[in-house]
């Protein structure tokens, strides 16, 4: 009789705890796959742009996240592991729509989304640039986009360096 009461209590407690954790915990995790949305992204040996890239990751590729450090993610892309900057990925999505604390304790109707947190936390972002552009239509951002398209072809650059007797 004692064992049976204990069993019922234990099952109830475990069930409640499990349900609570399930509802409170976020749905995605490490090991998940993220899509690279920015063009010309590279994998670096360290979380820094200074090193020579260990591989290229074209826009539309999917990478497996291993871990994160600051603005950098260590990922696996087609068997190559390296670090990629967070700007390569879309802004983090908002968390699950179901809000247990809100239901139980009356949280505010509009929660701050993770996109908003990321925007506020990251400082100067494309969204801030967009606000600045709206305030200053006289500035030539189209010209800046044109300048950003002046990318040197690596093969042509190697030939240029060789032809000029320079150091590769």
């Amino acid at each position: 009789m004692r064992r049976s009461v204990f069993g019922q209590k234990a099952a109830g407690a475990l069930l409640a705890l499990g349900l609570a954790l399930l509802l409170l915990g976020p749905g995605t995790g490490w090991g998940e796959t993220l899509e690279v949305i920015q063009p010309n992204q590279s994998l670096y040996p360290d979380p820094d742009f200074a090193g020579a890239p260990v591989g290229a990751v074209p826009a539309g590729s999917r990478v497996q996240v291993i871990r994160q450090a600051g603005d950098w993610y260590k990922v696996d892309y087609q068997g190559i592991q390296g670090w990629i900057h967070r700007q390569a990925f879309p802004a983090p999505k908002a968390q699950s729509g179901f809000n247990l604390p809100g239901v139980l304790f009356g949280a505010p109707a509009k929660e701050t989304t993770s996109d908003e947190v990321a925007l506020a936390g990251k400082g100067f972002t494309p969204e801030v640039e967009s606000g600045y552009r709206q305030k200053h239509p006289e500035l030539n951002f189209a010209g800046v986009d044109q300048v950003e398209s002046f990318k040197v072809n690596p093969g042509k650059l190697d030939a240029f360096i060789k032809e000029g007797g320079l150091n590769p």
Partner: protein
Amino acid sequence: MRNQARWLALLVAALVLVQGCVAASVVSVGAIAAKGVTKAAEASRPINDSEEYYVGRAVAARILGKYPLYQNPKLTAYVNEVGETVARKSSRPRTFRGYRFAVLDTPEINAFACPGGLIFITRGLVQTCATEDQLAAVLAHEVGHVANKDGVNSISQARWSQVLTAMGTEAVKQYAGVGGSLVALFEGSIDDVFKTIVVNGYSRTAEEAADKAAVATLGRAGYDPRALPQVLDKMMAKEKGTSGGIFKTHPPTSERLAKLKVEAAEAPPSQDEAGRTRRFKAMTS
């Protein structure tokens, strides 16, 4: 039978618990990112690479509002090849989105390095250079400013503190307020950088550090570092008696030039300069 039912209930509860633990222990990219940025906001931190990139774009947009781009694809491609050759030998070979070089359509003699690696040289300064090595010297000096982060360092400390405050959790609650204040702070930061690189110029210390970086970069790339004092001499001769242009923003004191000549003289001789000068003439004639 009842025992079996109890064990089954226990098993189901355990499974639910395990699933719940997994969901709670793994952390989404969004959650970690948000946590990370909140920490960053709490601490005083330097501007990061992507923020520097957006500041650089806005400063470049202001410069291009003042000077049009020189629409000469052949020359632009050539300037980018020379620029990339020196940038990859600099102390900062890569930036957030890479270095880009462009020619401004003005006879003024000047060059500007926007944070993040957008570098402008005027048509007047390209025409002042007599060799590819001199063009490389100007670009290496500007890359030195980017590598040393002289542009973003001109954002006033007080303003950056305000940026960090605006990024704090209190502000996050009011999204519109954060967006608005950050845009205003961004605007102020662009003013700080623009004033420094286009209107007032860098400090003498920053100029000397960029010279030193350029001399080292040119040597590593295979260009002649003596080309830097040479082109500064040429610019001084051309700009004599004028108050604007490059010497308003890059003042070459006699002390700076003397130091530069000593530093550059120590470099080993460069190979095939004549061949490089031929292709420079072909591109600029």
